[in-house]
């Protein structure tokens, strides 16, 4: 929208109209409407600040470097969240390792190879629908398909695959956007010198869209870390004993603890927990998620400033 229309100067208004009662009433209404909408927008921001602040304050007694790297002791009434943190890291890494290649190639298909016909529309519809499937239905699918049918049993592998299918549609969508942002002229230049379609994609289109794809993947890190339902029945458990600070504690077919499920556990299943402990777990989870998201946003801003076209 042109600047002149967005922010008309007072003289511009005056030059256009003289103030009558009618316009005065309109301007009052305009100011009121602006105030109302600004308040509505503010009410979106306020909860975030209040929530983060409230959780942090209540979690202070428990937060420390040790909290991250120690294991829960005394039936989870004390100690740290190390097994849950490690489990979440494993789940995130494995599920994104599975989902990213498939998602990117699917986006390549939709953007570079697919023609404008009913089949493509069905594929797009499927992506949208996959995105809208409730997380508990993903959990049921993971249980039915990976744990029971494929015989993998409850394990990190089953949980990661379930999470991968959950994050797939968003990776496809953001990769599609990244690929579409590469100007057509780049592709045409390649075709003109005789490159095949795949050669074009591999050497020109993909490298130029890596940043956009990476952005989408980073955003999914926080979503994967935060989901509880899909892992609750496919591989995450109430408690698992591993050594403090041990980074290689979990195997692919082991069950693991997860931060998200750990928060659910300590806030509803364990007795006599000192009040700060669930808050501390919530802060670790929320902090990780918000930090990763902030990183992705900063990355995106940096990229936009670096773009050469």
């Amino acid at each position, binding site marked *: 929208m042109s600047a002149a229309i967005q922010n008309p100067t007072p003289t511009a208004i005056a030059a256009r109209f003289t103030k009558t009662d009618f316009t005065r009433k309109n301007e009052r209404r305009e100011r009121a409407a602006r105030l109302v909408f600004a308040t509505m927008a503010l009410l979106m921001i306020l909860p975030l600040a209040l929530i983060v602040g409230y959780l942090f304050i209540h979690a202070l007694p428990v937060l420390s470097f040790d909290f991250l790297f120690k294991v829960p002791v005394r039936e989870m009434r004390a100690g740290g969240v190390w097994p849950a943190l490690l489990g979440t890291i494993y789940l995130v890494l494995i599920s994104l390792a599975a989902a990213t290649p498939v998602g990117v190639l699917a986006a390549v298909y939709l953007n570079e190879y697919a023609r404008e016909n009913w089949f493509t529309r069905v594929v797009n519809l499927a992506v949208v629908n996959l995105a809208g499937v409730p*997380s508990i239905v993903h959990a049921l699918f993971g249980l039915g398909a990976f744990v029971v049918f494929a015989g993998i049993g409850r394990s990190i592998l089953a949980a990661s695959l379930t999470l991968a299918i959950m994050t797939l549609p968003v990776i496809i969508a953001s990769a599609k956007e990244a690929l579409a942002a590469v100007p057509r002229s780049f592709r045409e230049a390649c075709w003109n010198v005789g490159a095949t379609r795949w050669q074009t994609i591999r050497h020109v289109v993909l490298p130029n869209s890596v940043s956009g794809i990476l952005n989408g993947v980073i955003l999914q890190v926080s979503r994967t870390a935060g989901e509880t339902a899909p892992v609750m029945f496919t591989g995450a458990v109430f408690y698992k004993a591993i050594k403090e600070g041990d980074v290689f504690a979990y195997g692919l077919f082991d069950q693991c603890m997860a931060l998200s499920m750990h928060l659910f556990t300590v806030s509803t299943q364990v007795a006599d927990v000192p009040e700060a402990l669930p808050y501390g777990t919530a802060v670790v989870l929320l902090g990780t998620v918000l930090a990763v998201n902030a990183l992705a946003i900063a990355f995106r801003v940096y990229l936009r400033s670096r773009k050469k076209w």
Partner: protein
Amino acid sequence: MRRRRWELISESLVEWLIRLCGVSAIVFVFGIFYFVFREGAGLLWSGRFSVVQFLTSIEWYPTSQSHVRYGALALIAGSFSVTLLAMAIAVPFGVGAAIYVSEFSGPRAKETLKVVIELLAAIPSVVWGFIGLTVMNSLIIKLFNAPIGLNALNGGVILALMSAPIIVSIGEGALKAVPDSYREAALALGATRWQMVRRVLLPAARNGLLAAALLGVGRAVGETMAVLMATGHSIRIPTGPLDPVRTLTATIAAELGEAPVGSDHYQVLFIIGILLFLIAFVVNLSADLIVRGIRGKA
């Protein structure tokens, strides 16, 4: 230019791989429906389950020793009431915020708001559930002098905060899609910004905003952990927002852990999953059709 043979072969292999990944979304959607249906199908066709009872009876007794009943009406009412409350809060506020971001705010405010809304959307559902269990709980008890704070209102407010970001971002996209010429024409005729929004933009963006609201509904209906922790988990038809309720999603999450694989209880939980999948499918399909309707027109 002559290409080497292996180049041609590897090129077509790669293309087939890409095509395969491309249709993966369809495969998975069907796969999800198939597997969920498969696990619940046994009970569905047997004589022990009646769809009528499922949809019309509030008596949910899957573990009864004497008289097993699978009436899911109270659960459906629970999901419905919490979603309704959530939308009643989220749609006006979300659309209002979208209007502010799109039409009334300067560039810096716009960027800040968008970042904040994105961060709000990133909060995991279990953290929301925890907030409902602790913060909202005490707040509702104090504000309304209610005996318990775990009820439909608690779940509704939390869900509203969770689905508002979707409504704002898609709503903002819908408003942005209205051509500038509409705005300029209205302003040139002497309309104030608010008049332009009310009489020109909103009607023009109506379909997109409706789609945004529908996607918010889809998010709310499908939410599990937050409602599991915040709604009080009680089987009843709610008579007011301060009544505790139980949703379809929370029922699955609560009971799946101890249901022996393959048992009737296990299968009926998958049947609830089928119901949820169908609801989400219908909501997403409608949103998609509505959006396509605009593109068809324009």
